[in-house]
């Protein structure tokens, strides 16, 4: 696939404009109870070396046995990425020495991955949508962890993560800015979370990115790339790309050349540092793992997994726009998390979709953000919010009162309809009562009445006074109509 050059995305160098080209390898921890080739738990945390089987510790004579759930999760993910599922794939050994790699090799998939080419649609804030090609997805083992801060002279090794299943998702170099890269990872994370194949928790290391960055003058062949290893937040991914692209541009504009290497991003210093050059790169000596037979399954197996897939973000977004009349932006906000989308649908069911979206996005999300809560721990349930929307729709409360009601439900809980009753929040639609209030205000302010005839905008002042007099409960439409009639404003 070729990506058209977008002048707005170019980076200004000292001499010319530069296009940055980005490809990513995302390591996503597979959601599964046990490890890829052993029965040990994948639970996060625990004392060091609590979750280690004989296989994970690579004791002599131990053999790997594939965890079927991890295979299913990889296939589900492949389906979610609209990718080709390979009915036959092969596990290979990637050989290198490191203390937290007990076998002396990582079991991975090299030549024949379980998932082939696919794509991800990525929406950008300006409304643009780009397609990012997926080259492959393969299953592999995670390594353990070396702890260098426990002892002055020795390093300790924690094998709890050793053997945990990872999906490496490799994109094509289709990304052209740090913004696109961030949006891509965000979208990929959303898809994985919808599928339930990776929790996407970057703080726990469930999602890490290796970012390949190169720069070129628009229209020229690809430049030499550097790989920034193990970036563990979406914000850092953006920062790392920016500083790395500028570093490369500065070198080239200075007459230098980029050498292919692996680099590390230091968020504290805001720079990337060389980790190892191409010459120092390991020779991993990949070869098929003789302990494992090729992984084979049929289309019926893939079909059965496809049947169980949830509605995915793109489909859900299209449906929200179509069925609820939402704007693409609002639909995009609501589908970003499956739980938000589910919440919204519970509120919107049988109600006005736009009104429901407004309340969910503006009131609820706003409040959740402010309090640092998420939708799962929202004090206001979808049923409660739905009742509030109903009360507005039925004309029982005004929008303004509804906000007060929302506050009460948020902090105290309770059935909104009952609260409206018990706290006397009902909107006054009785024209007689409103009229009395209006008459009183008109009587008390003859000068304003006079002015209003020349300056109709004063109507607002009268509305405000009336609302104040009725404790905000008067139906604003009724107030407006009455005042207009009495003041002779049209």
């Amino acid at each position, binding site marked *: 696939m070729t990506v058209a050059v977008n002048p707005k995305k170019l980076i200004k160098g000292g001499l010319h404009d530069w296009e940055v080209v980005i490809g990513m390898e995302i390591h996503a921890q597979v959601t599964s109870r046990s490890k890829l080739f052993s029965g040990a738990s994948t639970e996060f945390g625990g004392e060091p070396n609590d979750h280690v089987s004989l296989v994970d510790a690579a004791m*002599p*004579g131990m053999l790997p*046995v594939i965890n079927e759930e991890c295979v299913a999760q990889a296939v589900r993910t492949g389906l979610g990425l609209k990718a080709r599922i390979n009915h036959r794939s092969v596990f290979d050994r990637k050989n290198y020495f490191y*203390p937290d790699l*007990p*076998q*002396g090799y990582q079991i991975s998939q090299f030549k024949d991955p379980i998932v082939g080419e696919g794509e991800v649609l990525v929406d950008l804030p300006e409304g643009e949508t780009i397609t990012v090609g997926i080259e492959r997805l393969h299953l592999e083992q995670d390594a353990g962890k070396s702890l260098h801060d426990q002892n002055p002279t020795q390093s300790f090794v924690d094998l709890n993560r050793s053997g945990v299943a990872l999906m490496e998702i490799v994109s094509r170099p289709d990304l052209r800015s740090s913004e696109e890269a961030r949006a891509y990872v965000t979208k990929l994370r959303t898809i994985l979370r919808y599928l339930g194949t990776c929790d996407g928790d970057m703080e726990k290391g469930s999602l890490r990115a290796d970012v390949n960055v190169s720069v070129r003058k628009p229209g020229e062949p690809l430049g030499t790339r550097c790989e920034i290893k193990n970036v563990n937040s979406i914000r850092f991914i953006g920062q790392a790309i920016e500083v790395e692209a500028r570093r490369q541009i500065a070198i080239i504009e200075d007459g230098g050349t980029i050498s292919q290497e692996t680099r590390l991003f230091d968020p504290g210093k805001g720079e990337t540092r060389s980790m190892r050059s191409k010459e120092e790169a390991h020779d991993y*000596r*990949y070869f098929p793992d003789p*302990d494992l037979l090729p992984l084979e399954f049929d289309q019926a197996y893939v079909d059965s997994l496809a049947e169980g897939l949830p509605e995915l973000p793109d489909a859900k977004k299209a449906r929200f726009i179509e069925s609820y009349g939402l704007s693409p932006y609002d639909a995009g906000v609501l589908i970003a998390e499956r739980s938000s989308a589910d919440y919204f649908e519970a509120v919107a069911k049988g109600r006005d979709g736009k009104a429901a979206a407004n309340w969910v996005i503006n009131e609820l999300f706003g409040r959740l953000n402010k309090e640092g809560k998420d939708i799962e721990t929202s004090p206001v349930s979808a049923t409660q919010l739905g009742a509030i929307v109903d009360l507005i729709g039925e004309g029982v409360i005004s929008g303004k009162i509804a906000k007060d009601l929302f506050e009460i439900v948020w902090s105290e809980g309770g059935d909104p309809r009952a609260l409206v009753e018990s706290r006397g929040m009902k909107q006054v639609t009785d024209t007689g009562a409103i009229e009395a209030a209006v008459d009183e205000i008109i009587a008390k302010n003859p000068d304003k009445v006079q002015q209003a005839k020349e300056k109709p905008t004063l109507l607002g002042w009268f509305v405000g006074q009336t609302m104040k007099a009725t404790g905000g409960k008067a139906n604003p439409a009724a107030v407006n109509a009455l005042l207009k009639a009495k003041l002779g404003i049209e």
Partner: protein
Amino acid sequence: MTHLNELTLAEARDGLKAKDFSATDLAKAHLSAIEAARGLNAYLLETPDRALQMAGVADAKIASGEARPLEGLPLGVKDLFCTHGVATTAGSKILEGFQPHYESAVTHNLWRDGAVMLGKLNLDEFAMGSSNETSAYGDVVSPWRRAGSETKLVPGGSSGGSAAAVAAHLCLGATATDTGGSIRQPAAFTGTVGIKPTYGRCSRWGTVAYASSLDQAGPIARTVRDCAILLGSMSGADARDTTCADLAVPDFEAAVARGVKGLTIGIPKEYRVEGMSAEIQALWDKGAAMLKDAGATIREISLPHTRYALPAYYIVAPAEASSNLARYDGVRYGLRVPGKDIAGMYENTRAAGFGREVKRRIMIGTYVLSAGYYDAYYVRAQKIRTLIKRDFEEAYASGIDAILTPATPSAAFGIGEKGSGDPVEMYLQDVFTITVNMAGLPGISVPAGLDAQGLPLGLQLIGRPFDEETLFAAAQVIETAAGRTQLPKAWWA
């Protein structure tokens, strides 16, 4: 009366059943024979306490009429099988002091069936060798000597301890493993019977790996029937080894008496290698005649890719070994020699922990898997492997039931005689056996006579995948016709 340790496994089983003697008597007879034979260096570790404890349990089971298939039968265990709470070294310094917290699938099956463990048997380091001279714990001396000579001979390898112990009556049978001939060649050198079953017949779980796609466990014993009995217990499906076949275990012992009437035995012309001695050729002809006399049809066949098997093996096996042995890094268990940093620790540990032959194979394996060499070596070797397998498939498709070949190019040689300069001289020991591993087929070695110096020679029968039964039937015909080998008198005691 014969000493109890000189009975065959089947005879001992019957004797225990008839209560002619107790399992404890049987264990004690073996333990004293082992003690007297320490000069052979067959056992790396004797486990007399465990043997007597297991024998006691066996006696109780026999008394209560609950005897299991191998109840009270004392066996030796090649020290490649991990044994729970009993040191397991793989013949290497790098595993010195290692005590597994688990029992290999194969030995577990034997103990499950009532067998008694006498101890752990010497072997070539990590099963890499054909003479048991690469063991970090010293050479095994064969109980056999050339007529009128006191020259110490090798028992073959890598299951040299197993073969020597069986031949010297230091156990009724022994576990062994075979990656390129490590059961069949030492069996041939010591006048014993050894079968490498089909790849996948025995679980590899808990057996220290040399070359995973070739390694297979099997028994060495003094008769064909004894091997059949042992293999029946050792084999079986195991979900922990995904390369282990999910097949029911046939009644191997019942197949022993089946005979060969109506079978067609292939004689592969490519095994008539250059420089083959007249003695070996004569033995081979004699074996064919025995099978013919018993009612088999003999037919010459062609296995055209045979000559590529040895070089291809010495790419595939070291490649896998270089990776399999990476875990011996000094970090978690076994030997650790400190270094100035982690790389230094690795280097020092592996330099001190591995012997010459192991290092050689790790280096060969690392080389053939390296970028730029992988396609030229590893990929081509795998292609050859496919061709070798196809040769056999075509032979079997043409109506061949089993194939007869010599087991080894010669009888046992003296300790230190071979391979000190050119390792290939030693590698050629496995020229007849290696194809069988490359094709994943079953192969049995059975004694068929003695050479001019009075040393045993063996014949090999190769079968269809998972058809060990035909091999037992045919091997029994040879054993009966050739007469059981008269094992050497205990000059070492």
